[in-house]
Protein backbone atom coordinates (compact mmCIF):
# COMPACT_ATOMS: atom_id res chain seq x y z
CA UNK A 1 0.00 0.00 0.00
CA UNK A 2 1.23 3.48 -0.82
CA UNK A 3 -0.21 6.81 0.28
CA UNK A 4 0.91 10.17 -1.00
CA UNK A 5 0.41 12.85 1.66
CA UNK A 6 1.61 16.34 2.42
CA UNK A 7 3.89 17.25 5.29
CA UNK A 8 2.03 19.71 7.58
CA UNK A 9 3.61 22.22 9.93
CA UNK A 10 3.11 21.48 13.61
CA UNK A 11 3.91 23.54 16.69
CA UNK A 12 6.70 21.34 18.02
CA UNK A 13 6.97 18.68 15.30
CA UNK A 14 5.79 18.54 11.71
CA UNK A 15 3.33 15.76 10.77
CA UNK A 16 1.81 13.85 7.89
CA UNK A 17 -1.94 13.23 8.02
CA UNK A 18 -3.21 10.02 6.45
CA UNK A 19 -6.85 8.78 6.17
CA UNK A 20 -8.15 6.87 9.21
CA UNK A 21 -9.97 4.43 6.94
CA UNK A 22 -7.18 2.63 5.19
CA UNK A 23 -5.88 -0.85 4.44
CA UNK A 24 -2.66 -1.55 6.33
CA UNK A 25 -0.27 0.86 8.10
CA UNK A 26 -1.91 0.28 11.48
CA UNK A 27 -1.41 2.78 14.27
CA UNK A 28 1.89 1.95 15.97
CA UNK A 29 3.48 0.33 12.92
CA UNK A 30 6.66 1.73 11.41
CA UNK A 31 6.63 3.19 7.92
CA UNK A 32 9.22 4.64 5.55
CA UNK A 33 8.83 8.28 4.49
CA UNK A 34 10.60 9.59 1.42
CA UNK A 35 10.05 12.42 -1.06
CA UNK A 36 7.53 11.60 -3.81
CA UNK A 37 10.02 12.84 -6.45
CA UNK A 38 12.37 9.98 -5.60
CA UNK A 39 9.64 7.43 -6.18
CA UNK A 40 8.91 8.98 -9.58
CA UNK A 41 12.57 8.80 -10.51
CA UNK A 42 12.72 5.18 -9.40
CA UNK A 43 9.67 4.34 -11.47
CA UNK A 44 11.18 6.10 -14.44
CA UNK A 45 14.39 4.07 -14.23
CA UNK A 46 12.33 0.85 -14.11
CA UNK A 47 10.17 1.95 -17.01
CA UNK A 48 9.12 -0.57 -19.62
CA UNK A 49 8.36 0.06 -23.27
CA UNK A 50 5.08 -1.22 -24.64
CA UNK A 51 4.60 -1.95 -28.33
CA UNK A 52 0.98 -2.56 -29.34
CA UNK A 53 0.21 -3.67 -25.78
CA UNK A 54 -2.41 -1.37 -24.30
CA UNK A 55 -2.71 -2.87 -20.89
CA UNK A 56 -1.19 -5.65 -18.84
CA UNK A 57 -2.70 -7.18 -15.72
CA UNK A 58 -0.77 -6.11 -12.56
CA UNK A 59 0.24 -9.69 -11.79
CA UNK A 60 1.69 -10.09 -15.30
CA UNK A 61 3.52 -6.79 -14.89
CA UNK A 62 5.06 -8.12 -11.69
CA UNK A 63 6.14 -11.27 -13.54
CA UNK A 64 7.69 -9.19 -16.35
CA UNK A 65 9.65 -7.12 -13.83
CA UNK A 66 10.91 -10.24 -12.08
CA UNK A 67 11.98 -11.82 -15.38
CA UNK A 68 13.84 -8.65 -16.35
CA UNK A 69 15.53 -8.56 -12.99
CA UNK A 70 16.65 -12.23 -13.16
CA UNK A 71 17.89 -11.87 -16.76
CA UNK A 72 19.71 -8.63 -15.98
CA UNK A 73 21.66 -10.16 -13.12
CA UNK A 74 22.39 -13.40 -15.02
CA UNK A 75 23.39 -12.26 -18.51
CA UNK A 76 26.47 -10.18 -19.33
CA UNK A 77 26.66 -7.74 -22.24
CA UNK A 78 22.89 -7.48 -22.33
CA UNK A 79 21.46 -5.12 -24.94
CA UNK A 80 17.74 -5.59 -24.42
CA UNK A 81 15.10 -7.99 -23.10
CA UNK A 82 11.90 -8.48 -25.06
CA UNK A 83 8.76 -10.25 -23.84
CA UNK A 84 6.43 -11.37 -26.59
CA UNK A 85 3.82 -13.99 -27.47
CA UNK A 86 0.49 -15.05 -25.98
CA UNK A 87 1.52 -13.97 -22.48
CA UNK A 88 0.69 -10.44 -23.61
CA UNK A 89 -2.84 -11.40 -24.66
CA UNK A 90 -5.66 -10.53 -22.31
CA UNK A 91 -6.30 -13.24 -19.73
CA UNK A 92 -4.33 -16.27 -18.70
CA UNK A 93 -4.51 -18.61 -21.69
CA UNK A 94 -0.75 -18.79 -22.19
CA UNK A 95 1.45 -21.86 -21.63
CA UNK A 96 4.83 -20.21 -21.29
CA UNK A 97 6.46 -16.82 -21.67
CA UNK A 98 8.51 -16.03 -24.76
CA UNK A 99 11.62 -14.07 -23.86
CA UNK A 100 14.00 -12.72 -26.46
CA UNK A 101 17.38 -11.85 -24.99
CA UNK A 102 19.38 -9.47 -27.15
CA UNK A 103 23.09 -9.37 -26.43
CA UNK A 104 26.48 -10.72 -27.24
CA UNK A 105 27.18 -13.19 -24.49
CA UNK A 106 26.34 -16.87 -24.15
CA UNK A 107 24.22 -18.01 -21.23
CA UNK A 108 22.70 -21.23 -19.99
CA UNK A 109 19.07 -20.95 -21.11
CA UNK A 110 18.03 -23.98 -19.11
CA UNK A 111 19.48 -22.67 -15.86
CA UNK A 112 18.03 -19.23 -16.45
CA UNK A 113 14.64 -20.77 -17.21
CA UNK A 114 14.81 -22.75 -13.97
CA UNK A 115 15.66 -19.65 -11.97
CA UNK A 116 12.78 -17.72 -13.49
CA UNK A 117 10.46 -20.62 -12.78
CA UNK A 118 11.61 -20.60 -9.16
CA UNK A 119 10.98 -16.84 -8.91
CA UNK A 120 7.71 -16.62 -10.82
CA UNK A 121 6.32 -20.13 -11.13
CA UNK A 122 6.19 -19.60 -14.90
CA UNK A 123 7.85 -21.55 -17.70
CA UNK A 124 9.84 -19.48 -20.16
CA UNK A 125 10.96 -20.03 -23.72
CA UNK A 126 14.18 -18.20 -24.56
CA UNK A 127 15.56 -17.06 -27.86
CA UNK A 128 18.91 -15.33 -27.65
CA UNK A 129 20.20 -13.22 -30.49
CA UNK A 130 22.81 -10.56 -31.07
CA UNK A 131 21.80 -7.11 -32.29
CA UNK A 132 22.94 -7.92 -35.83
CA UNK A 133 21.04 -11.24 -35.84
CA UNK A 134 17.94 -9.38 -34.69
CA UNK A 135 18.33 -6.82 -37.47
CA UNK A 136 18.91 -9.64 -40.00
CA UNK A 137 15.90 -11.53 -38.72
CA UNK A 138 13.63 -8.52 -38.93
CA UNK A 139 14.81 -7.82 -42.44
CA UNK A 140 14.40 -11.31 -43.85
CA UNK A 141 12.11 -13.25 -41.56
CA UNK A 142 8.33 -12.78 -41.17
CA UNK A 143 8.47 -14.82 -37.96
CA UNK A 144 10.50 -12.04 -36.32
CA UNK A 145 8.22 -9.36 -37.68
CA UNK A 146 5.11 -11.00 -36.22
CA UNK A 147 6.86 -11.75 -32.95
CA UNK A 148 8.08 -8.21 -32.44
CA UNK A 149 4.99 -6.39 -33.67
CA UNK A 150 3.62 -6.78 -30.15
CA UNK A 151 6.00 -6.82 -27.23
CA UNK A 152 7.24 -5.29 -23.99
CA UNK A 153 10.90 -4.31 -23.85
CA UNK A 154 13.37 -3.21 -21.24
CA UNK A 155 14.90 -0.56 -23.48
CA UNK A 156 13.43 1.47 -26.29
CA UNK A 157 13.40 -0.60 -29.42
CA UNK A 158 13.12 0.93 -32.86
CA UNK A 159 12.70 -1.18 -35.93
CA UNK A 160 12.21 0.40 -39.27
CA UNK A 161 14.23 -1.57 -41.70
CA UNK A 162 14.16 -2.79 -45.26
CA UNK A 163 12.94 -6.14 -46.49
CA UNK A 164 15.19 -8.81 -47.95
CA UNK A 165 13.53 -11.93 -49.29
CA UNK A 166 15.49 -15.15 -48.80
CA UNK A 167 13.31 -17.81 -50.44
CA UNK A 168 15.16 -20.71 -48.89
CA UNK A 169 14.47 -19.37 -45.41
CA UNK A 170 10.82 -18.78 -46.30
CA UNK A 171 10.64 -22.38 -47.51
CA UNK A 172 11.82 -23.55 -44.08
CA UNK A 173 9.11 -21.49 -42.42
CA UNK A 174 6.35 -22.55 -44.78
CA UNK A 175 7.22 -26.17 -44.15
CA UNK A 176 5.91 -25.85 -40.58
CA UNK A 177 2.47 -24.95 -41.84
CA UNK A 178 2.21 -28.12 -43.93
CA UNK A 179 1.56 -30.06 -40.72
CA UNK A 180 -1.95 -28.62 -40.55
CA UNK A 181 -2.95 -30.15 -43.89
CA UNK A 182 -2.10 -33.65 -42.71
CA UNK A 183 -2.94 -33.24 -39.05
CA UNK A 184 -6.15 -31.22 -39.12
CA UNK A 185 -8.10 -33.80 -37.10
CA UNK A 186 -5.46 -34.19 -34.42
CA UNK A 187 -4.21 -30.65 -33.90
CA UNK A 188 -5.96 -28.44 -31.38
CA UNK A 189 -7.28 -24.95 -32.15
CA UNK A 190 -4.25 -23.06 -30.88
CA UNK A 191 -1.90 -25.23 -32.96
CA UNK A 192 -4.09 -24.70 -36.03
CA UNK A 193 -4.03 -20.96 -35.44
CA UNK A 194 -0.22 -20.91 -35.11
CA UNK A 195 0.27 -22.80 -38.38
CA UNK A 196 -2.24 -20.55 -40.15
CA UNK A 197 -0.65 -17.40 -38.74
CA UNK A 198 2.79 -18.58 -39.84
CA UNK A 199 1.61 -19.16 -43.41
CA UNK A 200 -0.25 -15.85 -43.66
CA UNK A 201 2.75 -13.96 -42.25
CA UNK A 202 4.86 -15.40 -45.09
CA UNK A 203 2.10 -14.48 -47.56
CA UNK A 204 2.06 -10.83 -46.38
CA UNK A 205 5.86 -10.70 -46.25
CA UNK A 206 6.28 -11.89 -49.84
CA UNK A 207 3.63 -9.42 -50.99
CA UNK A 208 5.63 -6.61 -49.38
CA UNK A 209 2.88 -5.80 -46.90
CA UNK A 210 3.21 -4.98 -43.22
CA UNK A 211 3.57 -8.11 -41.10
CA UNK A 212 2.19 -7.71 -37.60
CA UNK A 213 -0.22 -9.69 -35.45
CA UNK A 214 -3.12 -7.37 -36.29
CA UNK A 215 -2.39 -7.45 -40.02
CA UNK A 216 -2.07 -11.24 -40.01
CA UNK A 217 -5.36 -11.69 -38.12
CA UNK A 218 -7.09 -9.29 -40.51
CA UNK A 219 -5.82 -11.24 -43.50
CA UNK A 220 -6.85 -14.57 -41.95
CA UNK A 221 -10.36 -13.18 -41.56
CA UNK A 222 -10.35 -12.00 -45.17
CA UNK A 223 -8.95 -15.19 -46.71
CA UNK A 224 -10.76 -17.79 -44.63
CA UNK A 225 -13.94 -15.81 -44.03
CA UNK A 226 -13.77 -16.62 -40.34
CA UNK A 227 -12.58 -14.88 -37.21
CA UNK A 228 -9.16 -16.10 -35.96
CA UNK A 229 -10.94 -16.84 -32.68
CA UNK A 230 -12.88 -19.61 -34.41
CA UNK A 231 -9.59 -21.21 -35.43
CA UNK A 232 -8.28 -20.97 -31.86
CA UNK A 233 -11.55 -22.40 -30.55
CA UNK A 234 -11.38 -25.16 -33.16
CA UNK A 235 -14.88 -24.46 -34.48
CA UNK A 236 -14.09 -24.57 -38.19
CA UNK A 237 -15.87 -25.90 -41.24
CA UNK A 238 -13.11 -28.42 -42.06
CA UNK A 239 -13.81 -28.81 -45.79
CA UNK A 240 -14.09 -25.11 -46.50
CA UNK A 241 -11.13 -24.14 -44.33
CA UNK A 242 -8.77 -26.82 -45.65
CA UNK A 243 -9.68 -26.03 -49.24
CA UNK A 244 -8.66 -22.40 -48.79
CA UNK A 245 -5.65 -23.33 -46.66
CA UNK A 246 -4.28 -25.73 -49.27
CA UNK A 247 -4.90 -23.12 -51.97
CA UNK A 248 -2.79 -20.50 -50.20
CA UNK A 249 -0.15 -23.08 -49.18
CA UNK A 250 0.30 -24.30 -52.74
CA UNK A 251 0.43 -20.77 -54.13
CA UNK A 252 3.06 -19.80 -51.58
CA UNK A 253 5.05 -22.98 -52.20
CA UNK A 254 5.03 -22.38 -55.98
CA UNK A 255 6.12 -18.80 -55.51
CA UNK A 256 8.92 -19.75 -53.13
CA UNK A 257 10.15 -22.56 -55.40
CA UNK A 258 10.18 -20.13 -58.33
CA UNK A 259 12.15 -17.68 -56.21
CA UNK A 260 14.68 -20.38 -55.29
CA UNK A 261 14.99 -21.53 -58.92
CA UNK A 262 15.45 -17.98 -60.22
CA UNK A 263 17.96 -17.30 -57.47
CA UNK A 264 19.95 -20.38 -58.46
CA UNK A 265 19.90 -19.35 -62.12
CA UNK A 266 21.20 -15.88 -61.29
CA UNK A 267 24.21 -17.45 -59.57
Amino acid at each position, binding site marked *: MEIIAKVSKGSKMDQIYIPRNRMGMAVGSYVVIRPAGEIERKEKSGRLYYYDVKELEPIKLEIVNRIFSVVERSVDELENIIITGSFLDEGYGFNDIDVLVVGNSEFNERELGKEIERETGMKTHF*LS*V*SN*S*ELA*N*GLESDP*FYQVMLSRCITKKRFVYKIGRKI*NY*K*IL*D*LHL*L*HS*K*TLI*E*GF*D*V*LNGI*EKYKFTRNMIAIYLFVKGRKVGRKEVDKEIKKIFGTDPLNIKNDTLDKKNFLERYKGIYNRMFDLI*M*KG*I*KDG*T*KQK
Partner: protein
Amino acid sequence: MVQNRNKLIVIFIGHVSNVAVHRILMKAAIEKEGLAEKYLKETRGSFVIALEYRRKINPTDRVLPDAFEVREEIARKVKSELMLRISRGYSGIELDSVGEAVNKVLRELGAA
Protein backbone atom coordinates in the same frame (compact mmCIF):
# COMPACT_ATOMS: atom_id res chain seq x y z
CA MET B 1 -7.72 -46.15 -27.76
CA VAL B 2 -6.05 -47.90 -30.71
CA GLN B 3 -7.64 -45.40 -33.06
CA ASN B 4 -6.38 -42.58 -30.84
CA ARG B 5 -2.86 -44.03 -30.88
CA ASN B 6 -2.93 -44.29 -34.67
CA LYS B 7 -3.95 -40.64 -34.93
CA LEU B 8 -1.16 -39.60 -32.59
CA ILE B 9 1.35 -41.60 -34.63
CA VAL B 10 0.20 -39.87 -37.82
CA ILE B 11 0.79 -36.44 -36.32
CA PHE B 12 4.05 -37.61 -34.70
CA ILE B 13 5.30 -38.81 -38.09
CA GLY B 14 4.38 -35.42 -39.57
CA HIS B 15 6.35 -33.50 -36.95
CA VAL B 16 9.40 -35.80 -37.04
CA SER B 17 9.44 -35.56 -40.85
CA ASN B 18 9.36 -31.78 -40.53
CA VAL B 19 12.30 -31.80 -38.14
CA ALA B 20 14.34 -34.06 -40.46
CA VAL B 21 13.44 -32.10 -43.61
CA HIS B 22 14.14 -28.88 -41.78
CA ARG B 23 17.60 -30.06 -40.72
CA ILE B 24 18.51 -31.23 -44.23
CA LEU B 25 17.18 -28.09 -45.91
CA MET B 26 18.92 -25.94 -43.35
CA LYS B 27 22.25 -27.28 -44.50
CA ALA B 28 21.33 -26.42 -48.07
CA ALA B 29 19.86 -23.04 -47.24
CA ILE B 30 22.00 -21.35 -44.69
CA GLU B 31 25.35 -20.07 -45.74
CA LYS B 32 26.11 -17.66 -42.92
CA GLU B 33 27.23 -19.31 -39.71
CA GLY B 34 25.40 -16.90 -37.44
CA LEU B 35 22.09 -17.71 -39.06
CA ALA B 36 22.67 -21.45 -38.91
CA GLU B 37 22.68 -21.46 -35.14
CA LYS B 38 19.48 -19.44 -34.95
CA TYR B 39 17.68 -21.73 -37.35
CA LEU B 40 18.87 -24.78 -35.48
CA LYS B 41 16.97 -23.37 -32.52
CA GLU B 42 13.89 -23.06 -34.68
CA THR B 43 14.13 -26.71 -35.60
CA ARG B 44 14.10 -27.31 -31.88
CA GLY B 45 10.64 -25.70 -31.86
CA SER B 46 9.33 -28.45 -34.15
CA PHE B 47 11.34 -30.95 -32.16
CA VAL B 48 9.62 -29.92 -28.94
CA ILE B 49 6.19 -30.44 -30.56
CA ALA B 50 7.31 -33.87 -31.79
CA LEU B 51 8.51 -34.69 -28.28
CA GLU B 52 5.13 -33.68 -26.83
CA TYR B 53 3.43 -36.12 -29.18
CA ARG B 54 5.99 -38.83 -28.46
CA ARG B 55 5.10 -38.56 -24.76
CA LYS B 56 1.47 -39.26 -25.60
CA ILE B 57 2.22 -42.47 -27.53
CA ASN B 58 2.53 -45.74 -25.61
CA PRO B 59 4.92 -47.18 -24.67
CA THR B 60 6.39 -43.87 -23.53
CA ASP B 61 9.37 -45.36 -21.69
CA ARG B 62 10.86 -47.57 -24.38
CA VAL B 63 11.29 -47.91 -28.12
CA LEU B 64 8.03 -48.10 -30.07
CA PRO B 65 7.14 -51.69 -31.07
CA ASP B 66 6.27 -50.35 -34.53
CA ALA B 67 9.48 -48.27 -34.74
CA PHE B 68 10.51 -49.87 -38.05
CA GLU B 69 7.23 -48.96 -39.80
CA VAL B 70 7.28 -45.48 -38.28
CA ARG B 71 10.85 -44.92 -39.44
CA GLU B 72 10.06 -46.17 -42.96
CA GLU B 73 7.04 -43.88 -43.20
CA ILE B 74 9.02 -40.87 -41.98
CA ALA B 75 11.89 -41.58 -44.41
CA ARG B 76 9.36 -41.90 -47.26
CA LYS B 77 7.76 -38.58 -46.35
CA VAL B 78 11.10 -36.82 -45.98
CA LYS B 79 12.36 -38.11 -49.34
CA SER B 80 9.13 -37.11 -51.05
CA GLU B 81 9.30 -33.61 -49.57
CA LEU B 82 12.92 -33.19 -50.69
CA MET B 83 12.34 -34.70 -54.15
CA LEU B 84 9.51 -32.24 -54.67
CA ARG B 85 11.96 -29.40 -54.14
CA ILE B 86 14.70 -30.91 -56.28
CA SER B 87 12.20 -31.33 -59.14
CA ARG B 88 11.41 -27.62 -58.84
CA GLY B 89 15.02 -26.53 -59.20
CA TYR B 90 16.20 -26.45 -55.58
CA SER B 91 19.89 -27.36 -55.59
CA GLY B 92 22.31 -28.50 -52.90
CA ILE B 93 19.97 -30.93 -51.12
CA GLU B 94 21.75 -34.04 -49.84
CA LEU B 95 19.31 -36.91 -50.38
CA ASP B 96 21.84 -39.42 -49.05
CA SER B 97 21.52 -37.94 -45.59
CA VAL B 98 17.81 -38.80 -45.17
CA GLY B 99 18.25 -42.15 -43.36
CA GLU B 100 20.82 -40.79 -40.97
CA ALA B 101 18.81 -37.62 -40.25
CA VAL B 102 15.61 -39.61 -39.54
CA ASN B 103 17.41 -42.08 -37.27
CA LYS B 104 19.03 -39.25 -35.36
CA VAL B 105 15.72 -37.46 -34.71
CA LEU B 106 14.00 -40.70 -33.67
CA ARG B 107 16.84 -41.59 -31.30
CA GLU B 108 16.70 -38.11 -29.75
CA LEU B 109 12.97 -38.63 -29.21
CA GLY B 110 13.43 -42.08 -27.73
CA ALA B 111 11.29 -43.63 -30.44
CA ALA B 112 13.87 -45.88 -32.08
